[in-house]
């Protein structure tokens, strides 16, 4: 293989070229680095590249949702409900603003930490710990969705609907249910996949080369990290939703 494809090149020609090409600087060097052979991102696997690009696309979806919400909020002629009051909880007679959201946010951010630990143990091939941490992440995620369901229920009891609410602009309810619902869907999908991947890790599929049910392909421990990318992204998006919806 090696010899058959190697071709004799006149020495002078080769040297002249290699000197001209040795270190192209500036814009040209930048381009040739990125345009380089076989892979644009060196040592980035297909799966990770795909997840990053998907997340970029998903960023645009959440971006459009949030911008649309902000447009509605800024252009409305009726008052926007005060989030601090709407999202407050009364505990032992004290009105505590944003309490539930604070707990939810804390839970979700914590789950990012356990996810990162799972990725770490995944690369060390410590199956049990990886799987347990992923399950812990999934439980935290499920807790988040559960609290969101509680929050939705509470608001619906107070009369918030997608088309109206007792305090002001109807777009408050529409945007709230749509955006948190869309984010909650992301978390739910993440929880489901966390359980699936955790089961595979626990069973040792990635050591034994067991093939997937749908794709009939072998998986790799890398899937833990790809799962982690998605999970951190969902957390990051929540930070923006939290800032723009609850704190504004």
């Amino acid at each position, binding site marked *: *293989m*090696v010899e058959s*494809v*190697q*071709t004799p*090149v*006149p020495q002078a*020609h*080769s*040297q002249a*070229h*290699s000197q*001209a*090409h*040795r270190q192209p600087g500036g814009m*040209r060097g930048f*381009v*040739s680095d*990125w*345009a*380089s*052979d*076989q*892979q*644009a*991102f*060196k040592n*980035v*696997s*297909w799966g990770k*590249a*795909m997840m990053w*690009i*998907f997340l*970029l*696309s*998903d960023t*645009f*979806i959440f*971006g*459009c*949702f949030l911008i*649309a919400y902000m*447009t*509605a909020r800024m*252009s409305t*002629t009726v008052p926007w409900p005060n989030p601090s009051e709407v999202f407050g909880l009364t505990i032992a007679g004290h009105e505590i603003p944003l309490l539930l959201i604070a707990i939810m946010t804390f839970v979700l951010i914590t789950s990012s930490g356990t996810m990162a630990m799972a990725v770490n143990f995944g690369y060390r091939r410590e199956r049990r710990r990886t799987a347990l941490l992923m399950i812990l992440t999934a439980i935290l995620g499920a807790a988040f969705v559960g609290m969101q369901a509680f929050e939705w229920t509470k608001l619906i009891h107070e009369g918030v*609907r*997608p*088309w109206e609410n007792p305090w002001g*602009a*109807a*777009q408050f*309810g*529409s945007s709230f249910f*749509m955006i948190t619902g*869309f984010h909650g869907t992301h978390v739910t999908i993440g929880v489901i996949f966390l359980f699936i991947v955790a089961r595979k890790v626990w069973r040792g599929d990635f050591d034994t080369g067991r093939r997937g049910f749908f*794709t*009939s*392909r072998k998986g790799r421990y890398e899937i833990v990290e790809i799962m982690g990318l998605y999970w951190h992204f969902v957390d990051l998006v929540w930070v923006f939703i939290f800032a723009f919806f609850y704190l504004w």
Partner: protein
Amino acid sequence: MVDASHDGNDVITPAAVEDVELYHPHSWWTRYVFSQDAKVIAIQYACTAIAIGLVALVLSWLMRIQLAFPGALPFIDADRYYQFITMHGMIMVIYLLTALFLGGFGNYLIPLMVGARDMVFPYANMLSYWLYLLAVLVLVASFFTPGGPTGAGWTLYPPQAILSNTPGGEWGIILMLVSLIIFVIGFTMGGLNYVVTVLQGRTRGMTLMRLPLTVWGIFTATVMALLAFPALFVACVMMLFDRMAGTSFFMPAIVEMGEQLKHGGGSPIMFQHLFWFFGHPEVYIVALPAFGIVSDLISTHARKNIFGYRMMVWAIVIIGALSFVVWAHHMYVSGMNPYFGYFFATTTLIIAVPTAIKVYNWALTLWRGNIHLTLPMLFSLAFIVTFVNGGLTGLFLGNVVVDVPLSDTMFVVAHFHMVMGVAPILVIFGAIYHWYPKVTGRMLNEAMGQLHFWITFLGAYLIFFPMHYVGLVGVPRRYYEIGETSFVPASVHDLNVFITVVALIVGAAQMLFLFNLVWSLRHGREAGGNPWRATTLEWQTPQTPPVHGNWGKELPIVYRWAYDYSVPGAAEDFIPQNQPGTLGVTREAVA
């Protein structure tokens, strides 16, 4: 370590890319129906797109007949006419052009041209097609629902789109929105495949700057689609809520049939922003693959290297980037701060610069080339002329003061049909004539092809040139009957008849093309592996048509760019990309 390099700094490095794990089908079903092979998926995409495109073609006939002979077909009333317009536009732009260029040509050509065995995620690729098919079926289903398909116009502007008295207000609009949402999800699965395959799955020696321009065009268009479709997705989701959950994202307080609706406080303009943030990049999602493909066709059939390869690549990328900051030129009459109009007119006209670079480079590639007037070349030449014509009227419409009087006239219809209807379709025809031998192993019939070309090309001009005039005298678009109106001269009525007759003939010529596609499968001349003596990798496969896995035991190794035609001193007038040697451009085109 395998090292095929000439010196330490050469671009041909040891294999670093993992081999895709192919799924080897065991049954007829997994080989031809639920196939994970990009080539089969490509054919599925193409056939589905052409089939639904035929529906849109028939709709255009019906509209033209109504315009020329009002009342000739008694089942066409105003509602029907709006439904035809809406479905014709949406099908042609999204379900035909986007799907055919990216799902069809992208799937077939990307793995072959970059020297990969398949797309990087064949399973997701398969799901992409089935979701696309589902989207098409949902769309078609709206023809059979009570009230029929939506008649909101292909832009689906609210509030009118979701009012109950708009044709298709019952089910049509819901199915349209659901279909678009499914399409976006399905496309994302395919699009991620195309992008990652181009970025991370190339064979050894295939640097980005050695990619054929076809791949550059499809790649850039796919990246744009992954960033633009989210806006459409969001707009559809929100409008679906407005229609079904009673929200008011896009619905202002409004009275319909003397009745105050429950909506209020929403912004229809917001929908327009979201829609056109998708809609304008969509124009280039359709155009960039055409740009790329036509570059390769011209170079191959003029036996000459493409002029200014690097410029061509940069022009594609810059057009792609600019197309994200021009969307509001579709909204000059919607009511905008005048400074916005100034901004968007400027960015719009700046796009003319990279576009002109491309047109000049095509012309300079042809200059003193050894031009073979084969069918792909004829269609490419027709494309250049048509694209320039359509682009020139774009200069009119890009300027606010000229656009305002021309807006919503037939002039606009003529403009966008020339530039993003006829022009890309001509490239699709050229590309099919070019790659059909690779897909089937047989050539398409030349005589039928010539007839098809001349009727289509001349016919398109006979249809759309007069339409500019009709628009300039002020005939509005989307009117199902202009009747006797004082400012409309009699010539317009004559022209309408003329346009309709030509449109029917051109439509019939497409049946000839479809017949040719089927007829040549069996009766076409044997093509051999490389009938056009082309350089790119898809023509160098060990088998024609390429088998599952594309290449034999070893992936090809790329030694040169894709445009080594008529190299002085070479034995033949083309040097394939996988042929080693010192002649031609064996290094990166960066030099």
